[in-house]
């Protein structure tokens, strides 16, 4: 086995697994940096995966083959944003417990999307299989560099988009007035309020961005992996993204690292099966590998993650 090539493929596979996590965890950052806990990421991913499947299928039917997956992404962002409004309304306007509200999102998304699938597709439990999904893009010249070419320059457009969004998020959060205000609202809402910042508005925006990005994350899975939407298209990825967000310390670059780590440990378990020694290891232990690795790394890592100070606290100007 050509070692370089195999390593290249390992990185490549890692990125495939990481992409949806990056989108979703970035979304989580916007919400939680604004002070709103978001365990509804799973549900938001579900809504995005659903919308992407439906929209792409629709576009396909309309003959927009090339454009179809892009329309799917767009629809996922819109639908995810709309869905996240439920969370925003409950936890910002009505000051509901944010964890509860996140659970609501997960329930509603799971129920609603499948119900809609059944209505839209004649009682079927999943959407039609999509033809017009994303395929890997090879970047000319670069993709023929040994190792690096295989590792980085043969990827889905969504992967490139995710990486770009990491940079964009970093810029937005730490360089722009919007980011400063968003973070201030999550750290100390009453301080922000006394500076004339509308806490609720920024929290709404934070949650809606998380909806849009988690929607993208869900769409990624539909459009690069499953090619349809069913009850198990999203099964736990949202929670892993939540973990990635915490592991990444609510920072876009940290999140990128965490998502890549989770992706790598998933990819590893497949690669291990190529080697003969793995025959002597019970399969179940290979399946556990990613999760055990995560715990070991976290337990060994120094420094606790400090969440935004006002995370989870509804802002009530009258409260002291």
């Amino acid at each position: 086995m050509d070692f370089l090539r195999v390593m290249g493929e390992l990185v490549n596979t890692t990125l495939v697994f990481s992409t949806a996590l990056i989108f979703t965890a970035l979304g989580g950052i916007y919400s939680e940096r604004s002070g709103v806990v978001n365990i509804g990421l799973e549900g938001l991913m579900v809504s995005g995966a659903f919308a992407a499947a439906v929209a792409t299928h629709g576009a396909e039917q309309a003959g927009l083959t090339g454009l179809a997956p892009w329309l799917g992404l767009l629809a996922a962002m819109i639908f995810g944003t709309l869905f996240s409004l439920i969370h925003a309304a409950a936890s910002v306007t009505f000051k509901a417990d944010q964890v509860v509200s996140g659970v609501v999102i997960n329930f509603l998304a799971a129920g609603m999307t499948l119900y809609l699938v059944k209505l839209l597709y004649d009682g079927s439990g999943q959407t039609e299989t999509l033809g017009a999904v994303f395929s890997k893009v090879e970047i000319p010249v670069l993709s023929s560099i040994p190792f690096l070419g295989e590792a980085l320059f043969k990827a889905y457009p969504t992967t490139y988009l995710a990486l770009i969004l990491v940079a964009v998020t970093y810029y937005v959060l730490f360089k722009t007035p919007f980011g400063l205000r968003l973070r201030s609202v999550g750290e100390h809402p009453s301080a922000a309020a006394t500076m004339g910042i509308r806490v609720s508005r920024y929290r709404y925006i934070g949650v809606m961005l998380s909806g849009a990005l988690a929607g993208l994350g869900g769409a990624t899975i539909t459009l690069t992996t499953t090619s349809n939407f069913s009850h198990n298209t999203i099964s736990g990825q949202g929670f892993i993204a939540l973990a990635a967000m915490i592991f990444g310390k609510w920072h876009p670059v940290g999140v990128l690292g965490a998502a890549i780590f989770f992706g790598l440990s998933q990819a590893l378990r497949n690669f291990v099966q190529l080697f003969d020694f793995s025959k002597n290891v019970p399969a179940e232990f290979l399946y556990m590998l990613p999760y055990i690795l995560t715990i070991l790394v976290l337990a060994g890592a120094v420094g606790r993650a400090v969440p935004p100070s006002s995370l989870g606290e509804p802002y009530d100007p009258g409260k002291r």
Partner: protein
Amino acid sequence: MRSAETMVELRGITKRFPGITANDAISFKLAKGEIHALLGENGAGKSTLMNILFGLYQPDEGEIWVKGSKEAITSPQKAIELGIGMVHQHFKLVQPFTVTENIILGSEPRKGAAIDYKSAQSKVSSLSEQYGLSVDPKAKIQDISVGMQQRVEILKTLYRGADILIFDEPTAVLTPQEIQELMEILRKLAGEGKSIILITHKLKEIMALADTVTIIRRGKVIDTVSVAETNPQQLAEKMVGRSVIFEVAKKKAEPGSAVLSVKGLTATGNRGNLALNGLSLEVRKGEILGLAGVDGNGQSELIEALTGLRQVQSGEIRLNGTQLTNATPRAISESGLSHIPEDRHKHGLVLDFTMSENMVLETYYNPKFSKGMFLNAEAIDKHAEKLIREFDVRTPSIYNKARSLSGGNQQKAIIARELDKAPDVLIAAQPTRGLDVGAIEFVHKKLIEARDQGKAVLLISFELDEIRNVSDRIAVIYEGQIVGEVLPENTNDEELGLLMAGSARAGKGGQS
């Protein structure tokens, strides 16, 4: 008093909260260039009134006039537009942000889509020069002293061009030096034509600084007087409605043997710095040792080391001769040490527990309050009833949450709990912070009573008056060491100030 232009006029402001009228038809006038003090007991309604002026609360009745026109101040944004700035009782600063970020938040200079940090920093620097408010624009709030934080708060308002400044208990958390500096700053601001409302419990500050003072009691204006025409005694009486003794009456201490002895204590602080640097001290039976010092010289670390909340690297702590170095908080507490903590909300109380539950926070497991693995609710309630009666803690019932009590009453409850443990040593850290004169009087009385019963009391305070009035002996801490010991009757603020500033000089006559 100048008969200058009126900047703010409040007419008949009334604000009701469930069960209480916090402001009852309050009228008030602020003239240009004036420093106008607001005086009143805890809960009198001062903060509420100012929060209304700053747009955080809406009044139920009354009118607000600013610079001659009637205004509806519906949000802080509106208040800022009208040139009103407020430095809150509890600072409104974003801890992980830099000084600059905190100041520009909400009105950031831009370059393209991004914040123009360069011009922001230079603006901050020039402002801070103009008003003599020195700050490090790049430092994070979490890394700077309280005094510096307050300067940031002031800069925030100046940055927005405020000419009406509200200060809600600005000196409660400052050291004497910082208070001096702040007074200078306030005078300077007034001199530049800014109008200032100052809330404080410290009559000395009012006398030294204010032009006019308005006294509020239970939501009503009692009187507005010119400072030139009044004196502290009169102000205090107007405020509480009875006469107040300022000097605490105490008989001379009769100290016995050392109960708490600390030798060569070394410990690191939260940021890895050497916070305690071979510190030694002794507290004797029947005396109050006052520990004076500027904030950040190791006081907090010393308290934590003594109470088992911080590990020390070397040195030893003995209580009645028993080794308690690096013992657990419980072991220390059981050996006879009680602790009135500096931060009553963080350490002193579980705010969402009932008062009854809070009164056994350190003793719930004693056979007195438990049977086997179960709690004895009856005994716990009885205990709470007793303490609350004895210490006059004002709460509707023992089943109310600690959160619903005022700061003064919360503090009384903590003192009751700590003294009830019948300790040999009592550590009282900033025990009167934020309390009104009446409450302060009560706390001081209790500390002296404890001393008279033969307890050893270690009083840590930034208030020099408090240290000098209450202590029998004063030790000064500087950079993790005791740099001097003096007797209160033989010293003055100046000498203490010098010691606290680190001018190494052995205390005279401290070894009585």
